[in-house]
């Protein structure tokens, strides 16, 4: 691959990751081009980029998954490179190829690497070939439930249905009994087809109470591959990560070095280029290869804080032909919490609306990656990630306490989020004790009750507002939150709250 300076980068994404990429590009003196759907014209990434190109209707297929429209936008803007972020087109080999064919640099692995590892089934076969252990599984060419049922009887239920093109837990289903198999295969395939445009699914034996540990790798265009430590991402619900940390606590050093070694072996076998993540299940002192994520990962800031680097800058440098160098020793511990637009008390039901107010935490060891601003719109079209809080500490306990403080400072008015749930989780004995497994969230939810004091405070605030304002609570006289004249502020004196 010829090395070439990137002068103008189009970011084929939205939300916090588009903001994140713009910052690194700007630091490197690269001009940035944002793209946006009709739902995102007022979004932060559009405001921050040097230029912005509209894409069309909000639906992903018309906008952030629309290869033709994105390439046209890049050519119109005179971009010489495209960063795909994560999700959307980031792991589509055809997109990487189309970018290269259009004469631009794709900031990520080339299509042949994606073909080798981006497809989960192909990656399994590669792992087997280089002697990396995999979970027992069944490659389903068709969605014929009878063959699946046979595999289930041999291996035993529960089973896990996964999408070959999957990621982020989409198109994934746990199947407890043979009777549920047909419906699960169908639903997973439909979800995968909707999310990735590829409905192929396969089956794996469900490993009970495993930990989910992944290794960050970087590969350059000259055959160099390095590993930058591991991240424990066991705290998930519906197979989507909620809390991640690095290093993986209580992981024996011998197991850690076997994991890093397996990741590098896989990377070499795939001739891996740019940033990638090799995911493993860990159960006891056994580990199994899960998949390679051929892109930047949502939780990459954990690695950045411990290794004191900028992985997006690394990606851009690699894309420009720079070699990777062995990293120094990592330092301290980092924890990330994903604040999603979801109601944790009601099965993480998605929430949409307008952000009326947002307060982001600050302080030593606290980082916030977000696209949240006052008046930001959270629409139903895209995933629910609003903000990532990442806290660093000299040790896990310091990072954990900083996270507790940061979540306590976080406030957002307008829609339900997972922040209060996360505050309770980070404060729990189970998390403090690092009792990590993928069963953490279901077990935590079984005993979790939202803090009563917060509800009481909210009820008092609501009652006070109604008393000092109009007769009925919050009758919608004004419909724009920022223009709403609160009865409290209308009092003309600011302390204490009181009737007029």
């Amino acid at each position, binding site marked *: 691959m010829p090395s070439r300076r990137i002068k103008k980068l189009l970011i084929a994404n939205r939300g916090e990751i588009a903001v994140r990429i713009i910052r690194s590009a700007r630091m490197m003196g690269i001009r940035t081009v944002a793209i946006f759907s009709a739902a995102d014209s007022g979004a932060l990434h559009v405001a921050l980029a040097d230029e912005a190109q509209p894409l069309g209707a909000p639906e992903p297929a018309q906008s952030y998954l629309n290869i033709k429209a994105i390439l046209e936008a890049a050519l119109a803007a005179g971009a010489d490179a495209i960063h795909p972020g994560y999700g959307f087109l980031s792991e589509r080999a055809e997109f990487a190829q189309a970018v290269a064919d259009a004469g631009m640099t794709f900031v990520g692995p080339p299509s042949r690497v994606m073909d080798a590892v981006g497809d989960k089934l192909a990656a399994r076969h590669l792992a087997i070939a280089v002697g990396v252990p995999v979970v027992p599984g069944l490659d389903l060419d068709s969605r014929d439930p009878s063959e699946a049922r046979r595999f289930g009887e041999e291996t035993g239920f529960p089973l896990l249905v996964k999408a070959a093109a999957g990621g982020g837990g*989409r198109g994934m289903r746990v199947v407890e009994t043979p009777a549920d198999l047909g419906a699960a295969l169908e*639903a997973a395939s439909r*979800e995968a087809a*909707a999310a990735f445009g590829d409905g192929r699914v396969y089956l794996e034996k469900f490993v009970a109470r495993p930990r989910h540990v992944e290794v960050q790798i970087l590969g350059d265009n000259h055959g160099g591959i390095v590993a930058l430590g591991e991240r424990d991402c066991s705290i998930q619900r*519906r197979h989507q990560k909620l809390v991640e940390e690095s290093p993986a606590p209580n992981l024996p050093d011998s197991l850690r070095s076997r994991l890093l070694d397996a990741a590098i072996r896989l990377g070499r076998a795939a001739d891996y280029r740019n940033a990638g993540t090799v995911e493993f299940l860990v159960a006891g002192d056994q580990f199994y290869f899960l998949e390679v994520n051929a892109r930047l990962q949502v939780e990459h800031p954990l690695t950045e804080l411990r290794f004191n680097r900028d992985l997006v800058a690394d990606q851009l440098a690699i894309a420009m032909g720079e070699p990777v160098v062995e990293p120094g020793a990592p330092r301290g511990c980092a924890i990330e919490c994903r604040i999603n*637009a979801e*109601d944790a*008390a009601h099965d993480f*039901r*998605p929430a*949409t609306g307008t952000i*009326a*107010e947002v*307060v982001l935490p600050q302080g030593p060891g606290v980082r916030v990656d977000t696209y949240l601003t006052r008046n930001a719109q959270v*629409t*139903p079209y*895209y995933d*629910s990630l609003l903000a990532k809080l990442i806290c660093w500490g000299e040790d896990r306990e310091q990072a954990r306490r900083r996270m507790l403080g940061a979540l*306590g400072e976080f*406030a*957002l*008015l*307008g*829609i*339900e*989020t997972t*922040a*209060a749930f*996360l*505050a309770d989780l980070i404060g729990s004995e189970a998390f403090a004790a690092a009792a990590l497994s993928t069963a953490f969230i279901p077990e935590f939810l079984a005993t979790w009750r939202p*803090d009563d*004091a*917060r*509800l*009481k*405070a*909210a*009820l*008092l*605030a*609501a*009652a*006070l*507002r*109604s*008393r000092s304002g109009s007769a*009925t*609570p*919050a*009758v*919608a*006289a004004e*419909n724009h*939150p920022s223009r709403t004249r*609160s009865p*409290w502020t209308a009092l003309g004196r600011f*302390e*204490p*709250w*009181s009737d007029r």
Partner: protein
Amino acid sequence: MKFVLASSNREYEVEIIDRDGSTVRARIDGAEVVARMETTALGRVVRLDGETFRVFDAAQRDSLAVAVGPAHFTFKTAAGVRRRAHASGALQVTAPMPGKVLKVLVVEGQVVAAGVPLITLEAMKMETTLCAEGAAVVAKIHVAPETKVDHGAVLIDLGPAPSPTGSN
């Protein structure tokens, strides 16, 4: 004063007993609560049970949104609650969020028990299935697969179940 928490439909009775400066005495569902409610450099704060919470609120279309520290609550307004009650005995299944109808799992005239799946929606790339909250008969279906729906859109009208014990 009654407040209905939108996420759970639970009703709370709040009564302000008295106020002395920033100290507020109130009863919430009969239990007495004493809180200090002040305006500080952080904006409004409520000090309650030894904790200090930062509070924001805003009137929304049919509700009052209140953020308390990292938590968020949406209370239905009296008007919003009334509107729902006016549905004259008939129950309506409405979209909990904007999205797209994937599957309609019942037909008009069908009698359903509590917990029976009625309709599958897709929003934020996740599938959500709405189930009957109680025994009912499917009176009218307003949507079909691929229909795009807004938050609160009426999907299905339910009527009283034809059971002799049919109460609410």
